């Protein structure tokens, strides 16, 4: 509530609100220094750098719309002439796109929901019971996974998921959540510590239980951080190659990033087909990013600016 107000108020009101606060309020560096001259040399350099970001994306799009004959000439920068969209149809069939897309989407959604719920609940319990040894140690225990990369425990995880019948997308989902947990708990606990305890105490005086306090007061307050955690979980899960490629035993249940490998062996000269498939793999993440990029950046920067 309060930070929403601060964000939407005009600059003057915002700095006034900041001054009223703890003395280290949400004050941006160059927000209200007045109109300054644009630094054009810097802008030109930034535009050139932005080109290196956009070039591979342009290549992907233009290659996907070429004919097979045009796609083998190695000229990545040329525009498709004529435009030929048959690569998409072929890629759709070769990757069994409807099935692959559904599996990847389900794994990703379950990972996002699971990560936000488990991490926010655990973080709340940890922060509110920091004076208790079990919770304090649990925090460091859960955080320890940041030092245990998948590489190190991959072999036993492959072995054990196979033993318990989880060598499938469900097993991948569980592991995705577990590998996101440390980082998400770190973000949530940091955010929870910045929420004043008084807010909660007044709810408690009104007779709210811990369960009610969490769902009605704390969880909504966590929304900006949940958005950040959710987006990072989404990206990690949707784009992951290593884990599903090693864990999922049945090739027909593979996720989108993994099935792209079929273009590295057969059909290796039909570049228009492979690039159409790459584009179909990238597009969902880019679309989600376009709609959530405010949250990606605000989540990170607002968190840092928040007092």
């Amino acid at each position: 509530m309060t930070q929403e107000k601060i964000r939407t108020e005009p600059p003057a009101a915002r700095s006034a609100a900041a001054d009223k606060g703890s003395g280290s309020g949400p004050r941006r560096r160059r927000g209200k220094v007045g109109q300054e001259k644009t630094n054009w040399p810097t802008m030109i350099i930034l535009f050139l750098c932005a080109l290196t970001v956009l070039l591979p994306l342009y290549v992907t799009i233009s290659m996907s719309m070429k004919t097979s004959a045009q796609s083998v000439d190695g000229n990545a920068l040329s525009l498709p002439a004529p435009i030929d969209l048959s690569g998409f149809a072929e890629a759709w069939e070769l990757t069994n796109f409807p099935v692959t897309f559904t599996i990847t989407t389900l794994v990703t959604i379950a990972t996002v929901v699971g990560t936000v719920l488990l991490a926010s609940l655990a973080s709340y319990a940890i922060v509110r019971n920091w004076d208790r040894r079990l919770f304090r140690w649990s925090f460091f225990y859960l955080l320890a996974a940041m030092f245990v990369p998948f590489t190190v425990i991959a072999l036993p995880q492959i072995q054990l998921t196979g033993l318990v019948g989880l060598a499938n997308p469900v097993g991948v989902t569980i592991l995705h959540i577990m590998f996101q947990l440390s980082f998400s708990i770190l973000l949530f606990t940091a955010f929870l510590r910045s929420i004043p305890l008084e807010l909660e105490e007044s709810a408690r005086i009104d007779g709210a239980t811990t369960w009610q306090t969490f769902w009605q007061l704390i969880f909504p307050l966590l929304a900006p951080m949940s958005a950040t955690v959710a987006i990072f979980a989404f990206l990690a899960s949707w784009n992951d190659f290593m884990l599903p490629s090693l864990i999922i035993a049945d090739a027909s249940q593979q996720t989108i990033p993994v099935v792209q490998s079929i273009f590295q062996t057969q059909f290796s000269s039909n570049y228009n087909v492979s690039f159409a498939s790459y584009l179909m793999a990238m597009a969902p993440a880019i679309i989600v990013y376009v709609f959530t990029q405010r949250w990606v950046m605000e989540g990170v920067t607002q968190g840092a600016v928040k007092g």
Partner: protein
Amino acid sequence: MTTPMGPATAATGTLLGKAGGQNDHLAGSHTRRGKPKIDRIYYLFLLPSLILFTLAITVPALVGIFYSFTNFIGFGDWQLVGITNYIAVFSDPLILSSYLFTFGFAVVTVFVVNAIAFLLAVALTSRIRMKAALRAVFVIPMVISAIVIAYVFKYLFANSLPALGAATGIGWMQESILANENLAWVAIVIVTAWQSIPGALLIYIAGLLSIPGEVYEAADIDGASAWTRLRSITLPLVAGYVIINIILGFKGYLNAYDVIVGLTQGGPGTATRSIAMTIFTGFTGGDYAYQMANATLFFIITVLISIIQLRITRGKAALS
């Protein structure tokens, strides 16, 4: 805490072992309220994470370490063989070369990524127009699958550059650098950097925005040059963010896998085979116990590096 606290700075605090200090007020308020009994539901909040985490991370880790002392090949019978596997790992040229390659790659990539990300962050928080649009563009690589973008770059390195070399007559460009065992790693650094600069960039932008404007106003009054401001004000104030980026980045690059699989599959020969790729051969190659010994050693090395990095940074933090 006089500086604003955010996720990244809080993360620094935790990594530097200050987590307890931030919570003193909470511990105090509990006793002040006189509520020694804990609400049982807090256990319910915490337990799912603890149980799943233990089953998915801790148990496999312990199982794996146990098997590293056996001759298990991935299935069938096995016997305890003591530290035989560990001794063999140390004299395996394939494993040693994968360590050499991976550490060299990680050092170069950390340097390249942080230098570019920091400069971009400074530029993106300076007096420019279209700030939001430019920032949005620079973050795009972060949302694209590493393996997919590696395949795109593979085409550029293997087909487009040689075609360009042939058209312009530039000799060295006519052969794919992915097929050159002395240059293939450069391609891997380029693609990895392209992919991981945005993450570091966002953390640096957060760090730069956390610096209060007054600091710069004071510097302006004193007539400090842009370079002096960068070196004497900006860099020391974002030191915590630099540390976070270096630690997270280095850890990530030591586990390099996706980009290498996409670009070179570890080739030519074994020139770009990373530690992760070597360990995973234990699954297909019947080397389970042996590669688990390798993985255990790799884990010990990464933990030691993290401890050393934290020691160094703690010293730095004490100085500033």
